[in-house]
């Protein structure tokens, strides 16, 4: 084999490893943030395989889409999850793979004694997220610490009410399904009689060719995708528009609107006189009321 072929082979092995290990890490790590980053890494590995197959434009497009898209997606995951950094769950009983992909998250056995350090660190992260009440986090951290103190074996315990997104009873079935599908794909790969090998040299101006195809042969698909995205943008603008209740005061007013408003007579307590004061004279009557009170004392 020539140097180029060896380099190509080595690049394939590295990129394939990144793609597979990224996918595995995505499913097994305890940190939501890491999970997203691993998925991004997996896609970037696949993009590297595209580039290795001389589809450089496609590979770079994939990298660009997934860096931007995944960072935004992780942002939403962080906003909506209880333990995005995984420091609470990283102290639990983990399988070997989970331990491997959660390395560096916390200090394993040391976490057992100091169960609440994880919660402290996590509160820092959550403070940034701003999506959680701190007392709530403190409570959860306390539970975490208690659990560690009580039992080293967490496998049989039920933490359903703690919303542990990474620990789910369906995990083994999902893993089994993944293995079956993977075996099927590999079988297809092996059993397929012959792969057609093209001798066409890749076009260095692939961007021009892709652009030409998008604007001629696949124009309908391209333009309908554009229309779809436009409608999506309209929908987002429609949902995010300032409505009838744009701020908190307006919303409060809306919520309390059903209660009967307090009768106006109670606002300015009239003393003695049965007449209702005119609006302009109201402040004056309030003043008088205060004066009356002062006199009474």
């Amino acid at each position, binding site marked *: 084999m020539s140097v180029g072929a060896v380099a190509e082979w080595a690049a394939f092995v590295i990129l394939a490893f990144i793609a597979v290990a990224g996918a595995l890490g995505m499913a097994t790590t305890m940190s939501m943030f890491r999970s997203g980053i691993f998925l991004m890494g997996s896609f970037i590995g696949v993009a590297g395989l595209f580039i290795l197959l001389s589809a450089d434009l496609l590979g*770079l497009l994939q990298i660009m889409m997934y860096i931007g898209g995944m960072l935004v997606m992780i942002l939403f995951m962080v906003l909506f999850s209880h333990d995005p950094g995984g420091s609470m769950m990283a102290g639990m009983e983990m399988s070997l793979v989970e331990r491997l992909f959660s390395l560096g998250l916390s200090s394993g056995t040391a976490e057992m004694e100091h169960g609440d350090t994880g919660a402290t660190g996590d509160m820092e992260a959550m*403070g940034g997220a701003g999506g959680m009440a701190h007392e709530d986090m403190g409570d959860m951290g306390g539970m975490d610490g208690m659990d560690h103190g009580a039992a080293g074996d967490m496998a049989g315990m039920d933490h359903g009410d703690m919303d542990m997104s990474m620990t789910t009873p369906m995990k083994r079935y999902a893993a089994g399904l993944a293995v079956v599908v993977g075996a099927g794909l590999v079988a297809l790969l092996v059993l397929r009689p012959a792969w057609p090998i093209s001798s066409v040299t890749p076009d260095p101006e692939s961007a021009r060719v892709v652009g030409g195809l998008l604007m001629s042969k696949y124009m309908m698909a391209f333009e309908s995708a554009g229309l779809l995205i436009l409608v999506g943008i309209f929908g987002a603008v429609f949902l995010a528009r300032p409505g009838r209740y744009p701020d908190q005061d307006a919303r409060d007013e809306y919520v309390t609107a059903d209660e009967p408003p307090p009768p106006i007579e109670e606002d300015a307590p009239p003393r003695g006189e049965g007449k209702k004061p005119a609006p302009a004279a109201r402040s004056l009557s309030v003043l008088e009321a205060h004066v009356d009170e002062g006199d009474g004392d």
Partner: protein
Amino acid sequence: MDLALRALGAMGALAVATVLTWLLEPRLLSSAAEKGVAAPVGVRDEKHLAQNPDTWMYSAGPILAVLGVVFAVVVIPWGDRLVPRDLGIGVFYFIVVLDFVVLGLSLGGWGANVRDSVDVYYRGVAQLVAYVVPLGLAYIGAIMMAGSLSTQRIVEAQAGMWFVVLQPIGFVLYLVTGLMQAYRPPFLEPFSAFIGGGVFGSSSGGRAIGWRIAMSATLFLVAAMGAVLYLGGWRGPVLPGPVWMLIKTYGLMMLMVWGGARFRLLTAGRMLELSWKILTPVGLANVLVVGALILLGVGPT
């Protein structure tokens, strides 16, 4: 052998340019209220870290950012046939690999697990969303006229006239979005003093130096790409190509940094507003104008 030589040349150019930028930038910003990225790096500072940093992400951040700028310098042309690698999709490649700086910022900011530092991730992503569309539109004008994504072809297409003369709107758009991409004032929200200097507030030693290298190199690369897209790259009389390239790059950098420091700092929300309400429509208008110019036969044939 040739490959190793090219790689070495590219890295040498990047190192020299980064050091120059590092030295030059604080002087340009001497009057600015907030220096942001250009503030001195506290290599030996004791940094407060939360108790459970995600150590791998924390270390991966600066490494990824430096890798991004190292990859990006590959397509910067320094002279006739003097380019580390003239990729057919060079400009697009440049945009994509500079995204690794944002990825590094996110990882490093999150991994430190300090409140201010985690904020870098949120604000950095908001800034990415703000600049990425107008930045692409700022590139498209030059790409349309040159008819190619290759940096070398874009420079050659400006043999008659620089694109800055033909597309002044696109040039201004590039100045603004380039500042956003480089996190320079007035767009330094992820590095603002409000959140303790961002990742600089939570990293010291090698990590801080890594961040500083990555950010200086990003400014240099943005200015160099501006020179390639709008100022004719290495083209110029008498002096050799690399000298012209350096002059144009640093001239553009001074213009950008000096001009940006005249403005009040913008928050990420303001940046998004600026992006969607002003820059994106202006960019689309620029695309229309450039298309009309091409149809009228103005520009390179």
